């Protein structure tokens, strides 16, 4: 029986985890490998590392982080942020990442999806979509550059195109719900899930375990991602999974 995946997301800047994570019992609170290990022990099914480094040096450091994580952890992980070319994908995947996540670069140059899928296989290529509802067009609009730049694309069409080009998975972030802690965007997640045949990772809005149950039951998401509720220990991966198990959802 297939299980639903719970995926903590770590923002990594210049090789360090940022966003004020409060694992007080750890000596080095900013070490991505140590945090990865904590989440692994809690039962995380997968991890996402988002490289938000501003400098080229910081990007190079990310390769070291990827190697260190791959050496220590035996669960799959995805790396996103600053991946603009096939060479960037090669660097990250050869360092031991299992998947790369493309966002702005894929919107600007959709052929990058085809190139990546042809070279590494679709299973390695995750397309991250930042989505915001737009009343004027009565659907969700794709944003790039970390949610700062609206594009002409609508989310459903872009998701379909990305999958046709070879994307193996969609990491779908609701900008409307992100940070709200009011729950995942059910309508958005369901709409994209119905439109494409690859797994959907729902992201944005997780505030408690019930929200995970909602997005799995009502939106049929395959996986759900969260950052702050895990980082701030409002709940743990293990607690969320126990709640889901009690509610009849298959989890590992």
């Amino acid at each position, binding site marked *: *029986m*297939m*299980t639903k*995946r719970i995926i903590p997301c770590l923002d990594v800047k210049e090789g360090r985890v940022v966003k004020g994570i409060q694992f007080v019992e750890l000596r080095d609170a900013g070490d991505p490998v140590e945090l990865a290990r904590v989440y*692994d022990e809690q039962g995380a*099914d997968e991890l996402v590392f988002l490289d938000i480094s501003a400098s080229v040096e910081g990007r190079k450091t990310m390769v070291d982080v990827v*190697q260190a994580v*791959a*050496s220590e952890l*035996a*669960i*799959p992980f995805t790396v996103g942020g600053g991946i603009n070319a096939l060479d960037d994908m090669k660097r990250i*995947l*050869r*360092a*031991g990442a*299992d998947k790369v996540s493309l966002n702005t670069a894929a919107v600007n140059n959709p052929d990058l999806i085809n190139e990546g899928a042809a070279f*590494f*296989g*679709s*299973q*390695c290529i995750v397309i991250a979509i930042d989505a915001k509802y737009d009343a004027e067009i009565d659907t969700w609009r794709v944003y790039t550059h970390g949610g700062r730049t609206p594009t002409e694309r609508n989310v459903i069409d872009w998701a379909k195109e990305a999958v046709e080009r070879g994307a*193996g*998975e969609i990491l779908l972030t609701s900008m409307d719900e992100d940070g709200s802690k009011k729950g995942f965007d059910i309508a958005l997640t369901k709409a994209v899930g119905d439109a494409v*045949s*690859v*797994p959907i990772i729902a992201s944005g809005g997780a505030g408690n375990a019930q929200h995970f149950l909602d997005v799995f039951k009502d939106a049929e998401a*395959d*996986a759900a991602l969260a950052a702050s509720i895990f980082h701030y220990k409002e709940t743990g991966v293990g607690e969320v999974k126990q709640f889901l198990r009690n509610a009849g959802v298959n989890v*590992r």
Partner: protein
Amino acid sequence: MIGIIDYGMGNLFSVSKALERIGMPYIISESPEELNNTKGLLLPGVGAFKDAMTSLQEKKLDQFIHRYVDSGRPLLGICLGMQLLFEESEENGHFQGLGLLKGRIVRIPDRDVDGERLKVPHMGWNKLHFHQEAPVLHDMEEGFVYFVHSYYVDSIDEASLLASATYGVQVPAVVGHDNVFGMQFHPEKSSETGMQLLANFAKAMERSEEII
């Protein structure tokens, strides 16, 4: 010493790190001479069946693998590496595999028996069901392992089916016959269950002592 076959089709880093974690020495090589100095072989693989077979043939590794298996030493294929062990595949055409195990590789149906839609690839953690005793499953519980694949083994010989997972169809997950083993999932990415499976394979190699 395990030999990891390097034929340009796999994430060798993760596999080698997993072997380091269980304390198993390894070499990574594309040279039959070097690989022949080992007690067990690992055939990893990510990508397309045809490209993988072509690459093995170009490097004459297909013949080497047959000779190695004939010597009685164990071989473990992982993911695409497992699919290559079978007779044929219909991935993007019709292609011959290594023919070490009986069965053919076909696409995972995108509907289950009730007509419910199934996503392909089969991606994520799924539970193993054991079918019979085998050295690689020794002392193990039916745990969860991480799958990523769009094709699976159809018409497998019941005798070689060691463990399966359910995804619309019965997906052969651990297969084996004599000294040839395969795992459809990624043991190197399957946490403790995966490490235990790899460790069991390493133990199965001990019987190679007298062969080389």
